[in-house]
């Protein structure tokens, strides 16, 4: 009887630790899921005299990918982002975060530019509104401008295939 208690307590501890230690502490659940995407009005990376407002994307399902030339994991996920953009499912917009324009442009020349366009958030102010804290981050935004999904850290082929793409297809079917 006593032994059973000890074994049960030990098993409970093992389960607790097994779950607790395999959770990724960097994956902080975003309070922005299900909320309207914060507004922005930012200059385009390629054309500083033109701007893009978040409102202009209303009516479309789209992906916002936060990236920077100084961010090695962004390079790591770049092929996945490129494949997602090439699939033609939805427009992929880049949010170039706290970067230098020249560095960002040459990074795109070197590694390919999959983005419909990139907006230029030089001081990271819009990044704060989107709760960005670990570049790269990826958001899926629906037709009504609501954030439906957020990925913190590099997009992997698995996440793109199993989570992002099915969600994009589903949202595209919604009217």
């Amino acid at each position: 009887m006593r032994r059973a208690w000890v074994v049960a307590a030990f098993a409970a501890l093992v389960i607790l630790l097994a779950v607790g230690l395999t959770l990724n502490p960097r994956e902080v659940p975003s309070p922005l899921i299900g909320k309207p995407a914060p507004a922005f009005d930012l200059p385009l990376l390629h054309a500083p005299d033109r701007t893009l407002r978040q409102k202009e994307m209303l009516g479309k399902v789209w992906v916002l990918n936060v990236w920077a030339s100084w961010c090695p994991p962004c390079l790591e996920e770049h092929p996945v982002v490129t494949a997602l953009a090439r699939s033609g499912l939805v427009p992929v917009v880049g949010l170039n975060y706290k970067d230098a324009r020249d560095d960002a442009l040459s990074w795109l020349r070197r590694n390919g530019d999959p983005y419909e366009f990139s907006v230029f958030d030089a001081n990271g102010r819009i990044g704060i509104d989107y709760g960005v804290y670990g570049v790269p981050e990826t958001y899926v935004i629906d037709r009504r401008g609501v954030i439906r999904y957020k990925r913190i850290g590099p997009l992997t082929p698995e996440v793109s295939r199993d989570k992002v793409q099915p969600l994009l297809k589903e949202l595209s079917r919604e009217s």
Partner: protein
Amino acid sequence: MRANRLLLVLLCLAPLALPAAEDPALEKRVTGLAHELRCLVCQNQTLADSNAPLAVDLRNQIREQLAQGASERDVIDFMVARYGDFVLYRPPLKATTLALWAGPFVLLALGVALLIRRVARRREPEPQISDAERARAAKLLE
């Protein structure tokens, strides 16, 4: 060589030097809030302790908002809206965090209960001595 080393030491110390406070009262409020908020890059530090670029940005954000007349509550709401409750260094008491707050006390109570039970069990029964034995002991002690 020596100069290089000095430079290195100075560079290491540089992050400790805070920008000159223009308004000490405002700076005090900024620091107070920064101690309440978590740096999401180095998660076990507060915004006040961290010098990650995001922490610097968020401190500037706090300063800007306070200077524009926002209250402490406003700034905290602003941060929670973007980063969630996790940004609060002291988590709020609500249904989802109940286990976090109550857990240690439940464990403590459990431990104390177990301890009391053990101690109670270990207490030896009073030795039973018969009158004859008592008489014998008395004789031996004389």
